[in-house]
């Protein structure tokens, strides 16, 4: 399991190769999951019943902060994978930690956002639009939350066992997951918030 091979460490075993490929297929399924959420969102977007519309409740500032936090965390996890490939374990773990902290900050802002919505009368049970908005944002948020727990577990394994084929493979797959969540956020940012505030 030496570094400096022609292939990055995470591909060095057959099982890792299979795991990474399988995870790409899973991400394909996740594309359809979020596509379905977006489908339902666009269908129910204007069905506000007696509740507020998007334009009435969206605020650009928290949305911008969330976007910058997530985009940066996507950058830092990329740096973590790069550090892993050149064998710098300490740098990799540092970038990993920063990624998770940024993710946690993102969740914090999102929770604030949800509390605010409920406050202004846009709760889960208010209307079809609010239900779909909170479900779409919430599904993304649950994925981020799950990612935080998963990331901590991987970090603990890297700390305890060092950089092996297994830990490198898991870290790489986690980075794929994290990048994917950022891509989904870009679509949420563009087609839920910005479109709603045009």
């Amino acid at each position, binding site marked *: 399991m030496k570094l400096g091979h022609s292939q990055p460490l995470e*591909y060095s075993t057959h099982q890792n*190769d299979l795991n990474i*490929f399988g995870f*790409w*297929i899973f*991400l*394909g*399924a996740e*594309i*359809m999951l*979020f*596509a*379905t959420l*977006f*489908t339902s969102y*666009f*269908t129910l977007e204007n069905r506000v019943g007696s509740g507020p519309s998007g334009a009435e409740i969206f605020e*650009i500032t928290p949305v*911008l902060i969330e*976007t*910058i936090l997530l*985009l*940066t965390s*996507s*950058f830092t996890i*990329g*740096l973590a994978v*790069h*550090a892993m490939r*050149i064998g*710098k374990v300490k*740098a990799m773990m540092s970038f990993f930690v920063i990624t998770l902290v940024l993710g946690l900050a993102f969740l914090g802002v999102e929770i604030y956002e949800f509390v605010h919505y409920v406050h202004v009368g846009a709760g889960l049970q208010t209307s079809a639009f609010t239900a779909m908005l909170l479900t779409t944002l919430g599904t993304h948020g649950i994925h981020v939350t799950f990612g935080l727990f998963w990331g901590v577990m991987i970090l603990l394994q890297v700390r305890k066992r060092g950089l092996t084929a297994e830990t490198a493979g898991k870290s790489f797959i986690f*980075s*794929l997951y994290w*990048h*994917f969540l*950022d*891509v989904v956020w*870009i*679509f949420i*940012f*563009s*087609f839920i918030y*910005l*479109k709603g*505030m*045009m």
Partner: protein
Amino acid sequence: MRELFPAKQVMGFVFSMLLTAVALGVYFFDLSFAVGMTILLVTAFVQALLQLIVFMHAGETKDKWAIYANVYFMIFIGIITVLGTLFLLIWDMA
């Protein structure tokens, strides 16, 4: 220190911030719905492709054809689902 910040990643990050700023234009400027949607679609899909190719290393192994085929197929069916649903339930509803 320089070796920890490879050029591709940094450029990619800067470019994605740029695309986000351009998308923000639809909020700050008074544009028509069509122009606004076009800007959003272009920036979102370009940023997605950027993430896919530069950050997620989709094209770096011999599996790349299967990976691209899978992702594009899902995006295609995803778009069909969105457009087909809107067509059925809203645009062509009596």
